[in-house]
């Protein structure tokens, strides 16, 4: 399967600070790839490099099959980017924002009209097309951002924290949209702080820490690697300790032998957040 993102020993330094340290990453065509990591791990810098906003210090990067150094114009034509923060012109309507994005992506006048109509229908925003951006709900604004990034039919869509700030219902509707886009052939590179989001959406997940990719695999495999069962213990309402086990039987034996001062014990199946904590030593969203 073709790699839509491929990096080899990618490094990015800002003076003496190393933001990305020999990153080797591949994202396969057709998958939803989740890119996780604590704040400051180098996720944002990696996305900036992959979306052509920042030039790497060294290493090889190809996006959509094109060398990011020598074929930057081709890269720009095959990627769509939805930034974490709303990046639409709030003095314009949804349709005007779409028109602008279609123009800067070099779509012809007839193609612009056709794609705008199609995409508004696709995300059910047709009746809001002529509303000003600021009058839309958070979920609708995010949908508007997504359709603006899809006008030129990108092969690869970057979604940076796509559901941050959305309520549970809007978040789930957006998940459905992401799945639908992927099913229709768009490869998706997603960053998120919501572990549940990565768990339900992503075919594979990579965890970045201190500028390096420390693990990459399918969520189920990652859980299995750290241990399918986790025991959480809390002593004197202080720090929670996590212990991982291959199966429930071993975990139960461990709990039986715990000292008497352990008052709170939870036995449960492990999730991606446990993988994250085990690998990085930090909780998701920790500064």
């Amino acid at each position, binding site marked *: 399967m073709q790699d839509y993102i491929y990096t080899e020993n990618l490094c990015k330094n800002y003076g003496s600070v190393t933001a990305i340290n020999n990153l080797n990453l591949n994202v396969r065509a057709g998958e939803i790839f989740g890119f996780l990591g604590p704040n400051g791990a180098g996720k944002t810098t990696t996305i900036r490099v992959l979306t052509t906003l920042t030039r790497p210090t060294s290493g090889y990067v190809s996006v959509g099959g094109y060398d990011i150094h020598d074929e930057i114009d081709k890269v*720009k*034509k095959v990627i769509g*980017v939805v930034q974490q923060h709303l*990046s639409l*012109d*709030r003095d314009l309507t949804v349709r005007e924002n779409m028109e602008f994005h279609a123009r*800067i992506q070099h779509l012809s006048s007839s193609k612009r009209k056709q794609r705008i109509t199609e995409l508004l229908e696709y995300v059910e925003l047709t009746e809001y097309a002529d509303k000003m951006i600021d009058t839309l709900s958070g979920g609708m604004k995010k949908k508007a951002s997504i359709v603006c990034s899809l006008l030129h039919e990108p092969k690869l869509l970057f979604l940076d924290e796509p559901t941050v700030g959305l309520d549970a219902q809007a978040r789930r509707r957006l998940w459905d949209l992401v799945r639908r886009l992927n099913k229709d052939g768009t490869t998706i590179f997603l960053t998120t702080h919501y572990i549940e989001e990565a768990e339900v959406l992503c075919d594979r997940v990579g965890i970045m820490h201190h500028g390096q990719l420390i693990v990459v695999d399918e969520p189920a495999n990652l859980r299995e690697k750290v241990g399918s069962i986790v025991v959480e213990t809390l002593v004197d309402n202080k720090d929670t300790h996590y212990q991982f086990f291959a199966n429930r039987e071993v975990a139960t034996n461990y709990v039986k032998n715990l000292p008497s001062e352990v008052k709170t014990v939870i036995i449960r199946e492990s999730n991606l957040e446990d993988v994250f904590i085990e690998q990085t030593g930090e909780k998701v969203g920790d500064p």
Partner: protein
Amino acid sequence: MSALGDIYSVFWVDLRNMRRHWKATIATSLVLPLLYLVAFGYGLGRGVNVGDLDYLSFVIPGIVGLTAFSTSFNGAASKLHVDKFFYKSFDELLMSPVRSHSIIIGKSLIGVVRGFISAIAIYLVGLILAPTLLFSPIFFLMLLLSCFVFSLFGVLIALVVHTHHGMGNFTTLVILPMTFLCGTFFSLDQLPAVAKAVLYFLPLTHSANLLRATVLGLSFPWLSFAGLLIFGVVFFIGCMVSLKRSSV
């Protein structure tokens, strides 16, 4: 797509924006120049002469120049600043296939339009107050060139200044003094040679010279024409370098 098509696409969104607020945009840019015109030209300057000219005829091209300067600079700089730091929409342009030179020229055009309209409005008021002013095509060309150079200056400053306070400080410390000092309200011939030399390193000085000469039928100041062109080229190169550095 051609560079012209790209420039128009970048300009299109700003134009669309301006069309929604054009009355307020034009009106607010005219308040200060009209006050200058009334206070300095019609009030204080009545009966005063500068060389062979009456002060009103002398000062009107200066006020037209400062209007073009401040409105073009602010028009281009403020929109780009908002796009960069508040709407975050400037990154969308950087990630698109539009080339840097088209982005720079496209983003400057809103300043050109705003500056040109405001300066023409002041010029028309000036025509009523001082009917001796000429209606010459070369004046409009020089006004257009001035607006373009000042807009490029605005784009450059919006690219290199990274905070809202920084923009405010630059306007207060650099733009405002320039509007008063660059031969707009008084002749630079009255100044010591050193001060005069320093002021010739500012673009508005050359613009004021060009506008005054072309609207009053004086000999064409080729040196100022070359000076303004050089400023334009320097600002454009500065914008290109700044855009390149932003991706490092």
